[in-house]
């Protein structure tokens, strides 16, 4: 029996920002997979439901030294301080409408439980959570493409990326019917990962050394000695997480060869970056 079968999964993602072209396939694949509605004007990005949102980063320099990069931002599925499952949003939801799956590491959202207080949105520094300000309406006939795997949300509730949890369930069901204990890496892939034409998104189990995500991220199993809240820091010098210093412990990692891109992953005081940019977890644990 494989060792990993007894361990909990910890599904996560690595996005190669050098490969990302900002094409938007992940966003649309996500919308189409998850029955995300659309409305007449989506140009106010502060009320446009995009579980996966691609941000444009610039290095802030002027012509011709200016550079840009794109950063896709799904829900980060934070493990919370110390990776104990108290994600910023989960810990504040008053009605347990969002919950942390200790067997998967996935932060769920129960639409029929959510009563729309939006506290979780205030708690999330990534703006990964979206509120249904409007009734979702599809033009006549277009509701025909809605997938039964994900229930359309009603007005007044919060929604967000689920790492396509229904795909995990489907993969588990298949494995169960076939008498297997566990699913294979390729059986459970999110809609954004499968859509990405550049292959920039890699998805899998961070706890499984055989999975590509684990091999790229090389997560440090020990808490960061500099900040005990941080667990799973990447030991790959090119890999970073968004706002890692807050101790949210996201399961979405980013990869870039470009230093200015890595620097934008977090906030640093003047001069601080140069001091800590070469610090990549406790290498003694290798």
């Amino acid at each position, binding site marked *: 029996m494989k060792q990993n079968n007894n361990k909990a999964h910890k599904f996560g993602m690595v996005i190669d920002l050098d490969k990302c072209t900002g094409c938007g396939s992940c966003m649309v694949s996500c919308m189409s997979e998850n029955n995300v509605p659309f409305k007449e004007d989506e140009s106010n990005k*502060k009320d446009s439901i995009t579980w996966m949102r691609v941000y444009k980063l610039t290095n802030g320099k002027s012509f011709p030294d200016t550079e840009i990069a794109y950063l896709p931002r799904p829900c980060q599925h934070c493990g919370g301080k110390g990776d104990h499952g108290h994600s*910023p949003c989960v810990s504040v939801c008053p009605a347990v409408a969002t919950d942390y799956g200790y067997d998967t590491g996935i932060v769920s959202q129960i639409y029929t439980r959510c009563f729309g207080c939006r506290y979780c949105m205030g708690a999330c520094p990534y703006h990964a959570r979206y509120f249904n300000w409007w009734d979702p309406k599809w033009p006549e006939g277009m509701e025909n493409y809605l997938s039964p795997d994900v229930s359309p949300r009603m007005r007044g509730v919060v929604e967000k990326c689920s790492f396509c949890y229904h795909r995990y369930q489907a993969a588990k069901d298949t494995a169960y019917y076939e008498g297997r204990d566990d699913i294979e890496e390729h059986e459970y892939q999110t809609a954004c990962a499968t859509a990405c034409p550049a292959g920039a998104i890699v998805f899998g189990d961070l706890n499984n050394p055989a999975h590509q995500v684990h091999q790229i991220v090389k997560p440090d199993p020990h808490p960061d000695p500099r900040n005990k809240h941080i667990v799973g820091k990447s030991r790959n010098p090119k890999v970073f997480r968004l706002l890692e210093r807050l101790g949210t412990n996201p399961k979405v990692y980013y990869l870039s060869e470009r230093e200015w891109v890595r620097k934008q992953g977090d906030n640093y005081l003047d001069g601080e970056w140069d001091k800590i940019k070469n610090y990549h977890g406790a290498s003694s644990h290798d």
Partner: protein
Amino acid sequence: MDSALIPEGAKRCSFPKFAIGVAIVSAVVLWGVFAMFLCWFKGLNQTNMNDYYGFALWIWADLAVIAVGGGAFFTGLLRYIFKIDELKNIINFAVIIGFICYSSALLILAIDIGQPLRGWFIFWHANVHSMLTEVAFCLSAYFAVLTIEFIPNILENRQANKVPFFHHLAHNMHGVMAVFAATGAFLSFFHQGSLGGVAGVLYGRPFAVREGLLIWPWTFFLFTWSAAAFGPCFTLLVTKITETVTGKKLVKDNVVHLLAKISGWMIVTYIIAKIIDTIYWAMVTAPSLGFSLSHFYTSNGFYGYWILITEIVLCGVVPGVLLVMKSTRENPTLRLIAIILGVIGVCLNRWVMVLQIMAVPVMSFDTWALYFPSWQEIATTVLPVAYGIILISVAYRYLPVFPQEHELNYSVEVEPVTEPE
């Protein structure tokens, strides 16, 4: 016309004048109710909130009315537990103000949530780790306490008191009020604190997050403290307004001075704690997350250092000092300035702890988000104010709210004129 309902010996304006006044304010209430129904039936797209501003004007209004409504629990605590007897002359009014504030808060919450029909989930499916759950439970329970505290005053209405059962009920409730007041203080301590905790636990938001004691961030204690400190300011302010509108002196100066003095000392101690908290946050907490203080107060069109200085110095230190010093406290003008500044200060604090949190960018590539409420939000926020004015007018007209009213207004010089009955 309604003289049978008016407390014995009290002089009130004519009923038509009263009715016209109430009707004018009711128009505002109707405007608010219209906006409220728009929000309920059309959804929260009626507001200018968005995914960056999940919490906005309403949550501020909620926190603010609960903060200024804190006068009820704190005065109750002083009156019933610490047995400061003079305060019995203002406790009724403090309770009414508290009742208005808390019922308004509950109403605003009922509009604010996206699925009002599911509001009860917060109780049914309670997540005990959420500060908001604690707020909901304690708020509702404390509202029950306020109702209990308000009932005897209602039953003291001239007609109601004629019913023997009501008479006895009011009497007996007074008898055990200390128990209710103690429970109320306990509940208030937690929900005022939890409202502070709502911001303080947001460890994804460096502007909000605070370290603390066990599960409680420092904002928990600061909120309770500030509500106790500034709540009486609001009680005094509304009393002053009521006195001005009615043209009568309703509470004796010694009572006002006492409450102002207590408030002053609470403000001074609070503001010292707040300054320490702010310095610690600015020098230790935020920098440890990679943020310098200037990040929170620059590069945007509204939030500057002015808001920090206004909140802490102008509307914190200044009213505290004015109310602590006997000479300024007993000067009616300076006292009035102090309590107005104090009320503004606590409201500003709540604003900062709700809206500025949402405005500050956290991801390095994110931008400041500014917001202005829609008319529907403004109308529903003005609604409780109008409703409060009506409730206070009705209560003042028909209930013996101010025990000293008679003594201060009729017993000395006006007495012979107003004794036709």
